[in-house]
């Protein structure tokens, strides 16, 4: 089923023409933004010179660092009065990345989500339980408004508290959920322990799973555990949040909405486009946003374009599930984390050394090993326990999730020199 059939199945030549038109409009709009105006001057490009998609390559990249440097609102292409919503992205050192959306931007974002719901067979008769964090995270509100467009009953459950999630599913006969892969596993486990068979006791049919990368095997396991169809969902705050790319009923790669985003795959080291079908870093240009469009944004996510047409008839190309990052960012429980954030917290604690080790295992268990400074030892076990707790709390305030903290002896952790390994990731997602 199509939400916007004409555009979703628009023949390639016409789609390319539409893309180019919107790209040129976007570049024109961005001349008003001092940051981009400066970039255009630097590279000597004029918007009129963008005559084909290939010319996009002559435009500069935009990075997360650019967003942080221009915080809070120096990259706006509209006046502040025209902005309607603010979302920030987690996982930064220092200032967060602030993304503004106009009324039209929000409606467009919702339409893209509606396409996703529709193409996976969700209708107004469905009951959608959004188990992702609301608040500043786009996984909450963006998905919520997209679901409302379809007309299904939307339950803004938010994450956690499995008992409450179950109660809602039982009493309101939830059929579709939006959830992280790790929480999907926890919930399946929780049901099993309670002796609840989702196939018999619940009305669940589908799950939109995203916010962190996971394997094909994990998808199958979740499907088997909950008796549902799982569809992969990809997005990032800088590009609206969820709804950038989504799987159709074929479950064979995620369609990127090319009337809204120009997609490129580059070699992260050189910035050059990779060959057809090769894996590289996904670069996205938003061409249908007015408040804060971004040109050639480096997502740091690694993927490849799947060649060939899709049986569903959509002409918007598909990308593979994300296979990794071209930086050292981690995603734990759907939250972006940079190891440098941990370093910053530890540096401010004199009782703790600067070295640390992050261990990830199970589904989403995170342990941070830190070294006790000998001078901070007063012989009291109780004080050590308090210190451990204090470190965990300070990390939680910075990272948005609370890791387990292990105090270890000074000098026992590998010393970080250059690109030393700070993370041991043994998760089975």
């Amino acid at each position, binding site marked *: 089923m199509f939400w916007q059939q004409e555009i979703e199945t628009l023949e390639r030549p016409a789609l390319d023409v539409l893309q180019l038109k919107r790209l040129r409009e976007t570049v024109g709009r961005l001349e008003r933004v001092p940051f981009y105006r400066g970039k255009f001057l630097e590279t000597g490009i004029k918007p009129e010179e963008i005559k084909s998609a290939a010319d996009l390559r002559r435009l500069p990249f935009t990075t997360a660092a650019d967003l942080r440097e221009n915080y809070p609102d120096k990259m706006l292409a509209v006046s502040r009065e025209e902005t309607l919503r603010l979302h920030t992205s987690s996982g930064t050192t220092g200032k967060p990345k602030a993304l503004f959306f106009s009324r039209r931007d929000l409606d467009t974002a919702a339409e893209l989500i509606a396409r996703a719901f529709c193409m996976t067979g969700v209708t107004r008769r469905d009951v959608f339980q959004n188990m992702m964090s609301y608040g500043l995270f786009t996984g909450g509100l963006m998905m919520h408004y997209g679901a409302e467009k379809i007309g299904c009953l939307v339950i803004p459950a938010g994450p956690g508290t499995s008992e409450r999630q179950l109660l809602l599913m039982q009493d309101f006969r939830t059929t579709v959920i939006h959830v992280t892969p790790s929480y999907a596993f926890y919930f399946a486990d929780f049901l099993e322990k309670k002796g609840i068979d989702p196939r018999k006791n619940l009305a669940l049919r589908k799950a939109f799973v995203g916010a962190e990368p996971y394997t094909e095997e994990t998808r199958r396991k979740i499907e088997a555990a909950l008796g549902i169809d799982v569809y992969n969902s990809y997005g990032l705050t800088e590009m609206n949040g969820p709804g950038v790319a989504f799987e159709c009923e074929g479950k064979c790669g995620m369609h990127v909405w090319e009337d809204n985003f120009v997609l490129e795959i580059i070699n992260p080291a050189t910035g050059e486009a990779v060959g057809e079908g090769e894996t590289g870093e996904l670069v996205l240009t938003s061409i249908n946003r007015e408040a804060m469009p971004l040109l050639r944004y480096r997502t740091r996510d690694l993927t490849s374009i799947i060649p060939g047409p899709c049986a569903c008839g959509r002409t918007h190309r598909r990308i593979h599930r994300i296979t990794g990052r071209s930086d050292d960012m981690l995603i734990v429980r759907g939250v972006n984390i940079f190891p440098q954030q941990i370093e910053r917290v530890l540096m401010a604690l004199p009782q703790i050394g600067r070295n640390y080790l992050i261990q990830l295992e199970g589904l989403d268990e995170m342990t941070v090993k830190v070294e006790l400074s000998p001078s901070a030892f007063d012989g009291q*076990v109780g004080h050590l*326990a308090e210190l451990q707790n204090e470190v965990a709390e300070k990390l939680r305030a910075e990272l948005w999730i609370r890791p387990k903290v292990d105090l270890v002896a000074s000098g026992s952790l590998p010393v970080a020199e250059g690109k030393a390994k700070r993370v041991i990731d043994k998760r089975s997602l």
Partner: protein
Amino acid sequence: MNTVKLVAVFAENRPGQAARVTEILARANINIRCITVASSGTFGVMKLLVNDPDLACQALQHEGFAATLTEVIAVEMPDKPGALHSVAQCLAAQKINLANTSGFVANNRAILVIEVHDPAQAGEVLKKQGFHVLTQKEALTV
């Protein structure tokens, strides 16, 4: 007031740590008279009564261990039922809280080693009640 110094050592709660600590002390020719280990999750604190606490501390610190000195009171009681009770009662009457505590009997002499908030005050209280509060040297030659 007679107080005694114990050596407190931080160690991870895993196999081999006690062996490492005791190896270092043995090499420094340190004699251990009393030992307690308190563990909490992934780490623990060993407290030792040794014949030369300063040397012991240095030797451990030299090998990278977090080690420090803790001041305690060592009080002697008769080795018979009710003796420990009188000590406990005496401290309770003065509202003195016993933190980490251990006790041992050697050569028919019963010694209680206690950590309190104010060791000097606790020592005075016990002395007034007629208990013998040991010096460092006496504690090491029980």
